[in-house]
């Protein structure tokens, strides 16, 4: 996991700028979802969570952004990095999954969505700045979570955190996470963790958005900025 943090703060070409305020090497004017994103699977589904701050440098361009995007009936993506890049990627993924479900006659699995996303990021890694978490429910594996950091590696995980704010909460999550949590326990942990990250990371803030995905449906909620479990 420390390897992932390293990759997000050490852009490939300039080791020197790793220490600068802009860890993402964004183009001028480009929006960053410098972010906190998180996903935890539970028995029967997945909880996905994110903050809502989109920034350009020090200006908060959008303070109520929606960083959890749906790509199929039961598959969602948490986005971090360049807002433009991740939006383009999720649009492509939505298109491919739609086509695939028609060709195969069945709902795509989270594994398939993750593989497709990884393929796109890996093959275009020189032109992209995107770290995503793919999560959802399918009939084959139940709830599952895949983390795809900047370089385009793919790892299936028992839980995943990402974005600039995630570095501040590795300790918290290592301490609190246990296997086999229930839906409510998982949701509570996601909300608490994102709140703590928002409290310490300048690029994360706003409201906490969550999506709970199960076989029966997707439940999207948010916690307003004045009711956060911790902080600001």
């Amino acid at each position, binding site marked *: 996991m420390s390897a992932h943090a390293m990759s997000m703060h050490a852009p490939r070409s300039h080791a020197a700028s790793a220490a600068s305020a802009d860890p993402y090497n964004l183009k001028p004017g480009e929006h960053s979802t410098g972010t906190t994103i998180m996903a935890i699977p539970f028995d029967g589904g997945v909880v996905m969570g994110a903050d809502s701050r989109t920034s350009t440098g020090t200006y908060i361009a959008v303070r109520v952004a929606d960083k959890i995007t749906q790509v199929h009936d039961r598959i969602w993506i948490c986005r971090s990095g360049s807002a433009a890049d991740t939006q383009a990627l999720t649009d492509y993924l939505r298109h491919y999954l739609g086509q695939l479900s028609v*060709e195969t006659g069945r709902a795509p699995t989270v594994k398939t969505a*993750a*593989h*497709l996303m990884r393929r796109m990021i890996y093959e275009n890694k020189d032109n992209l700045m995107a770290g995503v978490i793919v999560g959802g429910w399918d009939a*084959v594996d139940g709830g599952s979570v895949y983390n795809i950091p900047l370089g385009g590696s793919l790892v299936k995980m028992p839980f995943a955190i990402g974005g600039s704010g995630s570095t501040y909460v590795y300790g918290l999550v290592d301490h609190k996470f246990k296997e086999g949590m229930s839906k409510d326990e998982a949701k509570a942990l996601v909300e608490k963790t994102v709140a703590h990250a928002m409290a310490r990371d300048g690029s994360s803030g706003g409201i906490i958005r969550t999506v709970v995905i199960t076989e029966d449906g997707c439940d999207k909620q948010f916690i307003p900025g004045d009711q956060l479990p911790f902080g600001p």
Partner: protein
Amino acid sequence: VSPAPPPPPPPARSVMSAGSGYDLSSSTFSPDGRIFQVEYASKAVENGGTALGLKCRDGVVLAVEKPVLNKMLLPTSNRRIHSVDEAHGLAVTGFVADARQIVNRARDEAIGYEETYGTKIPPSVLSDRLAAYVHYFTLHGALRPFGATALVASYDDETKEHSLHMVEPSGMSHRYFACAAGKGRQPAKTELEKLTLNNREDPAQNISVREGVKQLARIVHALHDEAKDKPFELEMSWLCEESGWKHKGVPRDVINESVEWAKKDIEEAEEEDEDSDEEMEG
């Protein structure tokens, strides 16, 4: 020295001119709406050794009657049954060289699908892709249709279901309980229809893979005419729990057992016929 006599005129078309000029290209319809080149391609398949496929309740079995072209050939060479990846097997008949291309394409499709989507190619997708590939060759003036049919035995890891498909030179592909292609396909279909394959009230009655191996061995031997046809080898493969749901050749001893049983069964059937003939005379 007198010059050589002029060559004889080409013989008049003695074969019934079904085509009458509409059969020269696969991009030509006949007035009654047929594409003769595609039909001729199917005829080419009918010259090949009989290939049989059987979807049993607990697996799929493939069998091919492989004529031994030459006594000098190594017995296991010239395979007619190929694996596409672990979960799919192809039995082919007709022009074996054409079939080779279909097998290669199937392997490419399977690998490509897994690289892109991260899961094994579903059976219906594989047969649809092969059907589309084969079909493409029926609508080009510059290309000829494949003269081969492929029987596809598959296992779908996501739904845990096994299935049997057949892809024909026309580009049609269907899912089957049992199918046959090649020389003996008509009598084979009659025999296959006698088997219990689709009992919905009591699925446990449907034929098992072990039984299926014996039956296919029997059908191939029964259809083989010792006098007219060349000596043959029987190639068989299966996809079942016993093979770990991987496409594998049926073990040699199982084939030998089944062939022995098949030959005995055929003899007994012939004796019964003789007995009943005697009774009728009496």
